């Protein structure tokens, strides 16, 4: 037996496994697809139902409430640009995709991150998984995702969530580790229940680092929208892809700038809401 025979070929067993899943668990995957499309569709409908200017004004008001008139101007300006560039529908689709993806990422990453901060073993187990999630190019796990969920927003959302979880999880763990010991002692000595210590002491003290995690999660998720366009999720990613395939500078650049506008909007609003009104 020569060394050449020892070729590693994981695809040889992954492909049949995916095939098997597809045949046997099809109803489950179909249900996931329906749930994702329903969620995204609902958000899109809510944002596309009223006239664009109404949504822009609402975003402005939200910005004003979270961070004063500068935030209001930024929020209204970002959405106004998307509307002005003639990309309103695509922008709303992207916005919905990113918001849902980030929400799912946080929902998964936050509890795991807290757990990892408390149990070193959980963290040791999670670390290699996170490393793989962050380093394997998304295109690679997109193949089985598309095979299972077919083209559309669902595989895009899954790819985005997988990409968004690691930064949020790592920074959640870091944030909770950084809470000084004496504050935990204060909680215990005051007779606080573990839940009270988590919400009233740890979370507020972890907030600045959590904000960084959320920020990373949002920006990395947005970076995935182009990929989402490639697998038929629509939105600004589709516009960029179109610009690329036709070698047209104008539409591509416009869509790219709209992505930047959406990124600014989400980043600043989320940061303002996490910073809270005080300190």
């Amino acid at each position, binding site marked *: 037996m020569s060394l050449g025979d020892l070729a590693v070929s994981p695809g040889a067993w992954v492909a049949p496994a995916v095939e098997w899943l597809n045949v046997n668990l099809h109803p489950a995957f179909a249900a996931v697809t329906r749930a994702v499309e329903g969620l995204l569709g609902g958000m899109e409908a809510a944002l596309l139902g009223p006239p664009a200017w109404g949504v822009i004004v609402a975003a402005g008001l939200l910005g004003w409430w979270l961070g004063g008139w500068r935030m209001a101007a930024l929020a209204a300006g970002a959405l106004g640009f998307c509307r002005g560039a003639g990309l309103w529908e695509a922008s709303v689709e992207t916005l919905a995709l990113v918001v849902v993806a980030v929400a799912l990422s946080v929902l998964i990453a936050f509890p795991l991150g807290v757990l990892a901060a408390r149990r070193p073993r959980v963290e040791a187990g999670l670390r290699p998984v996170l490393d793989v999630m962050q380093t394997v190019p998304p295109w690679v796990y997109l193949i089985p995702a598309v095979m299972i969920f077919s083209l559309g927003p669902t595989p895009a959302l899954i790819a985005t969530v997988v990409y968004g979880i690691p930064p949020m999880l790592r920074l959640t763990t870091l944030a909770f580790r950084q809470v*000084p010991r*004496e*504050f935990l*002692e*204060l*909680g*215990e*000595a*005051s*007779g*606080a*229940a573990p839940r*009270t210590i988590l919400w*009233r*002491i740890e979370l*507020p*003290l972890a*907030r600045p680092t959590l904000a960084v995690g959320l920020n990373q999660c949002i920006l990395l998720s947005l970076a995935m929208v182009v990929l989402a366009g490639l697998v038929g999720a629509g939105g600004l990613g589709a516009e960029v892809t179109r610009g690329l395939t036709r070698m047209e500078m104008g539409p591509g650049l416009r869509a790219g700038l709209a992505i930047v506008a959406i990124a600014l909007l989400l980043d600043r609003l989320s940061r303002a809401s996490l910073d*809270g009104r*005080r*300190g």
Partner: protein
Amino acid sequence: MSAMAASEVLIDCQSVWKVFGDNARAALRAIADRGLSKTEVLQEFSCVVGVSDASIQVRRGEIFCVMGLSGSGKSTLIRLLNRLIEPSSGRITVKGQDLSGLRGQALRDMRAKHIGMVFQSVALLPHRTVLENAAFGLEVQGVARARRLEVAREALARVGLSDWAGRLPRELSGGMQQRVGLARALAADPEIILMDEPFSALDPLIRRQLQDEFRSLTKELGKSAVFITHDLDEAIRIGDRIAIMRDGVIVQVGTAEEIVLNPADGYVADFVAGISRLHLIKAHSVMYEPAAWARARPEVDVGALPRTHPEADIDALIGMVVGSGQEGVAVVDGGRIVGVVTPRGLLQGVRGTAPADLSVV
């Protein structure tokens, strides 16, 4: 009845041990069987003995100081008293309840209602106002917002910080922050307050001021306190009784006067060497028995000496002897002369030794 209540034991530690490390159980058994020393335990089991066979009683209304250098186990000891640290063996009873028997909510109730704690680092939540910080203990207990803020406001008033209620902790000086920590502990109205080196990080002038305030406030409110410090002067200033710790062992427990006059060993003696006796040692510790003194000095009429009470300190006695020009001062208790203080006795008191025998008077 009142004497009974005054001496009632609130915290009772009976031969409490704390050994840190994975082999703590085996280490503890080896200590019991073979009498290993702290260093041997570290070498053989890689366990650290934090507290070794500590027995203390804290009485109602008393300020009990635990004095020791860093690494002496005093911070571990105080955390055993509210079970922030589980003892390896021994029994700790607080207000008649065995702490080790309390589970979950019962332990939390005990901490919330009966045992307050103040930390060296203060641990004020930076995103909350001073008032909200002071109300934290009540918030944990589920007291309604309006009510807990009202109580917290009263507690802040007690420590003289009413005007700062709406500020954030970072706007306050270190001394003020520590007052907020005290107010937070007082707001829940616990009977026992654990003070973990609360004033160590403050500059000397502020520290002294807070020591006096703390002592008078505790006495005024009728609280009991366990006060940890590495500063013997502080322990003497604040404590009714003092325990001295070294390497996890409680070397001596007593009043400041007892410790200064009769140090248990060389270690304690070294510690008390630099302490001024002027306000520490009282007439009853340096006086001669009156009948014996009258025999030794028949020419002096004891009845004609200036008089004082047994609790008069050396500083006051020196003033009396110098001012009167007499041979000594008669100590009167309950209308009867119970002793005589002479200049020789005072000089010995200043050095911290008990009066010499009368042959050399």
